[in-house]
């Protein structure tokens, strides 16, 4: 089984599978077992999420003629994207 908890670098999966499995288990009280494949799919899903976030944040930074990604760019990306509603709390900025 690939999920041996050893993986820091597992090549195709960037995120450590054991850690992902732990996070999954803690997401609800009644999670019992997790198939070996689930963390794999998860790992990729997270990469994709980061990809979309980065892309949008990057666009926000470009609009402001910056080459540095700031937290406010991430916030803008979240605010502009409906499906990221669940992230609004995460990126909450102090109002200027």
């Amino acid at each position, binding site marked *: *089984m*690939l*999920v041996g908890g050893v993986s820091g670098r597992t090549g*195709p999966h*960037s*995120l*450590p599978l054991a*850690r*992902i*499995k*732990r*996070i*999954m288990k*803690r*997401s*609800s*009280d*009644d*999670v*019992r*077992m*997790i*198939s*070996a*494949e*689930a963390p*794999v*799919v*998860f790992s*990729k*899903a*997270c*990469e*994709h*999420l*980061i*990809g979309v*976030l*980065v*892309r949008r*944040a*990057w666009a926000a930074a470009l609009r402001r003629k910056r*080459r*540095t*990604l*700031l*937290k406010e*760019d*991430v*916030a803008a990306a*979240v605010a502009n994207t*409906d*499906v*990221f509603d*669940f*992230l609004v709390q*995460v*990126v909450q900025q102090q109002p200027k």
Partner: protein
Amino acid sequence: MAEGGAGNSGEAPATVEATMTIKKAPRAEVEELPKAIVRRVVKDKLSQLASGGEEEDVSVQKDALLAFSESTRIFMHYVSATANDICKESKRQTINADDVLKALEEIDFPEFVEPLKVALEDFRRKNAVKKSGSKGRQTKKRKVDELSIQNGEDGGDGSDE
């Protein structure tokens, strides 16, 4: 006897409970993703984006990195909880890859599903090779239905389709 007609002018019943759609907060056991890995993924994506040879120019503020990390963590909780629900509904005990994929669709990330299926097939193929041990065997595509993590072994010969 005209009843007070149009609307609630004046006395509005004070019993309107605003139903705030606050989802049940997951247990705040903060498992964090390794920052180094998140940073690597972020940088990776950035260099793909800024591939006009200006990648050296792009930097990411620490706070922004934290925001990415946090977002991913919350995303995982969200997807996990959804996948768990889906799994329960099917009266199974093991969350499998399909549950995760369905969860992604449910929370409005259908565009992730296709590339993830590809990655999954890839993983299954590699896994099948590892399991068959000797290279002499053909790699069969096995239907991995409820592959429990507890044991490393699989129950027997995979049924062939």
